[in-house]
C-alpha cells in the first residue's frame, strides 16, 4: 500500500511540462523525437549508400564454397584471397605478392598505365583550366559573356553529338599518321581544354581567381610585370591548394572516363577501368566459360573483386584527400550566382 502511494507521489512530482519540452522541444527541431528521427533517417540512407560497397568487399574475400552457400550472406566463414588473385590476373595485374615487388612488371601493368595517363591528362587539364579561368577573371575582352556561356554550353552538350565529327577528324588524320589506338587524340582534346568535365574545372579557377584582390596584380604591373608574370608569380603561387584540388578532380575523372577512351584508345593500351568493362570476355578467354547457375554466382564474386581492385586506388586517394574534394565542389561558386 505504502509503495503504491510512494509511486503515485513520484509520478505526480514529475514536471510534465519539462518532460514534454525535452521530448518534443520548444521548436520542432530541437526535440528528442525529431533528433532520433533525423539520426535514423541519416543512418538508414547511408546504409543504402554503402550497402553495395560492403557487399562487394565481403564477396571478394569469400571462398567459392561461401559464395554458393545460401546461409553465408555477410561474413565469410574463411577469408581467402582467391577471388582477388583471379581478378588481378583478368585485369592484367601481377598475381602474387612476389610479382608485386617485381617493379618492371608492375610498371607495365594496367594499373601503372592508368595512373600515368590520368596524371598526364590531369596536369594538362589543370594548366589549361587555370589559363582559361584567369582570362575570364581578369581581362575585359569582347564577347566575354558569350564565351563564358559557351563554357557552360560545353558542359551541357551531350558527348555523342560532337563525337561523329571528332571521329571523322581523327580518321582522316589516321590515313597519314597513326593516331587512333594511341593516347594522342585525347591528349589533343585535353590540351585544348575539351577534356572530361573541363567546364567545372574552369569554374573552380574562375571563382577562386575572382577573389584575389585587384590591388595585388596592379602593384605587380606598376613594377613592370607583364600578364604572364602576373599569372605565374601571383595567381599560381597564391592558389596552390586549389590547383591540388583541381588536379585531383581531373585525375579522378580521367581515371573514370570510358566513353572517349573506348572510342579513341580502343583498348590498345590496357587501362584498369577499361579492363574491368571487358572483364567477362577476358575471363571466359582465360578460364573458359560455363553457364551453370553456380558458375555465374562464382563469377559474380570475381567481378566484385575486380571492381574492388579498380576502385582501390581512388578510395585510397579519397581517404587522404577528402577535404580537398569536398571543398573543391564548394568552391565552384555556382551556388551563389
Amino acid at each position, binding site marked *: 500500500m505504502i509503495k503504491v502511494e510512494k509511486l503515485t507521489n513520484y509520478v505526480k512530482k514529475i514536471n510534465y511540462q519539462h518532460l514534454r519540452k525535452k521530448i518534443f522541444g520548444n*521548436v*520542432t527541431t530541437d526535440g528528442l523525437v525529431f533528433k532520433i528521427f*533525423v539520426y535514423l533517417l*541519416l543512418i538508414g540512407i*547511408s546504409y*543504402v*549508400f554503402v550497402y*553495395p560497397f560492403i*557487399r562487394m568487399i565481403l564477396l571478394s574475400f569469400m571462398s567459392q564454397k561461401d559464395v554458393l552457400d545460401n546461409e553465408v550472406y555477410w561474413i565469410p566463414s574463411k577469408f581467402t584471397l582467391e577471388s582477388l588473385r583471379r581478378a588481378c590476373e583478368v585485369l592484367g595485374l601481377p598475381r602474387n605478392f612476389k610479382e608485386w615487388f617485381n617493379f618492371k612488371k608492375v610498371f607495365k601493368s594496367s594499373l601503372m598505365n592508368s595512373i600515368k595517363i590520368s596524371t598526364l591528362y590531369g596536369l594538362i587539364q589543370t594548366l*589549361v583550366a587555370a*589559363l*582559361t579561368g584567369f*582570362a575570364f577573371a581578369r*581581362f*575585359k*575582352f569582347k564577347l566575354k559573356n558569350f564565351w563564358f556561356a*559557351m563554357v557552360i554550353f*560545353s*558542359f*551541357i*552538350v*551531350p558527348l*555523342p*553529338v560532337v563525337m*561523329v*565529327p*571528332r*571521329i571523322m577528324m581523327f*580518321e582522316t588524320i589516321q590515313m597519314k599518321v597513326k593516331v587512333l589506338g594511341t593516347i594522342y587524340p585525347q591528349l*589533343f*582534346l585535353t*590540351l*585544348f*581544354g*575539351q577534356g572530361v568535365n*573541363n567546364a567545372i574545372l*574552369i569554374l573552380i579557377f574562375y571563382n577562386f581567381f575572382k577573389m584575389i584582390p585587384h590591388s595585388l596584380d596592379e602593384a605587380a604591373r606598376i613594377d613592370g610585370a607583364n600578364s604572364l608574370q602576373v*599569372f605565374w608569380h601571383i595567381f599560381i603561387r597564391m592558389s596552390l591548394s586549389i590547383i591540388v584540388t583541381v588536379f585531383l578532380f581531373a585525375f579522378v575523372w580521367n581515371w*573514370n572516363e*570510358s566513353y572517349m577512351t*573506348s572510342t579513341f584508345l580502343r583498348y590498345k593500351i590496357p587501362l584498369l577501368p577499361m579492363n*574491368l*568493362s571487358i572483364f567477362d570476355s577476358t575471363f571466359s578467354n582465360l578460364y573458359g566459360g560455363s553457364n551453370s547457375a553456380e558458375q555465374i554466382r562464382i563469377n*559474380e564474386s570475381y*567481378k*566484385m573483386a575486380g*571492381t574492388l581492385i*579498380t*576502385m582501390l586506388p*581512388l*578510395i585510397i586517394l*579519397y581517404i587522404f584527400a*577528402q577535404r580537398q*574534394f*569536398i571543398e573543391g565542389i*564548394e568552391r*565552384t561558386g*555556382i*551556388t551563389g*550566382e
Partner: protein
Amino acid sequence: MNNNKKKQIIKAIKSNLGGYLFLAPWLIGFLVFTGIPFLYTFYLSFTNVNQTALGWQIKWNNFENYIDIFFKNTQFLPSLLEFIIMQVLYVPVILVISFILAVLLNQDIKGRAILRTIFFLPVIILSGSVMQQFISSGAANFASINSIFIFHIVSNYSRFFAQIIEVLFVNFTIVLWFTGIPIILFINALQKIDHQLYEATQIDGASWWQILWKITIPMVKSTALVVTIYTIVNLGLYNIRPRQSNITAIYDLIKNALGVTSNGLGYASAYAVLYTIVVFILVGFALLVLRNRDKVKVVESLQERQQKKLAWIQKRNKKKLMKGVNKND
C-alpha cells in the same frame, strides 16, 4: 583629353589581346572539337556518310535518316523513351532527396563529417564500368521490391503506379549515388542564407515548416537549378536501365551506330541530334520551372503619385501655353 582617350584605347586593346591570349587554348579547342562539330553533326544527320579509301563521302539524302528512325527502326524510339522516363523520374527524386539530406546535415548533428564523406564517396569512385559491374552482378539491388507487402497492394490497385515504384526502387541505391555533388552544393547554399532572416521569422512566430517553405526553399532555388542541370547531364552519362528489359541504352545505341560501316555515321548523327534535342528540352524545362520569378512591383507611395500627377499637369499647361503663343503669332 585626347591623350587620355588614346591611353584608354591602348588599354582596351591590351586587355582584349591579353584576354584572348590566355583564352586561346580553350577557344581553339572549343571551336575545333565542340562548337563546329556540334553544328556539323546537325548537317551530317541529313546525309549519307561513307568512308572510302580517298576520304569521307558525304551525300545529302534529305530526311531519309529521320524517316528511317521514326518509321523503320525499332530500336531507337524505345530507348529514347526509356531515357526520358529515367530522367523524368530520377531527376526530381535526386533533387528532393539531396535537398532533404542537405537540410538534415546542415543541422547540429554528431558525425556530420563522416556522413558527408559517405555521401560524397560515389562521386569519386563511380565510372561507367564500375556501375555496369554493380548492376549486372545485382549487388546494387538493395531489396527485391516484389517481396514487400505494400507493393502488392499498390500493384493490385493500379499497374501504372506499381511500375513507377518499381522503376524507382530497383535502382534506388544507384539513384542515391547521384546525390553526392548536389548535397554539397545544397549545404553550401544553405550556409549562405543569412541567419538574421531565420531569427526574424522565428520572432514573428513562424514554425519550422513555414520557415522551410517561405525562406529556405526560395533561397536555394538557384542552386536547385544548377543541381537539376548537373543531374540531367550526369545521368545521361551512365547506362542505367530504369526497367529490367533488354532495351539498349541510348548511349550504347549511338556508340554501336558509330561502328557500322555503311552510313553508320549518318545514322549516329541523327540519333545524336534527337538525343541532344531531348536533353535540351529537359534542361529548358528545368529552367522554366526553377527560374527566378521576380514579382517585385514598385509600389508608389501617395506622395510620389501626387508628384507625378503634378508634373504631368505642369507639362500639359506648358504645352497649352506654347500653343496659345503659337496662335497669337
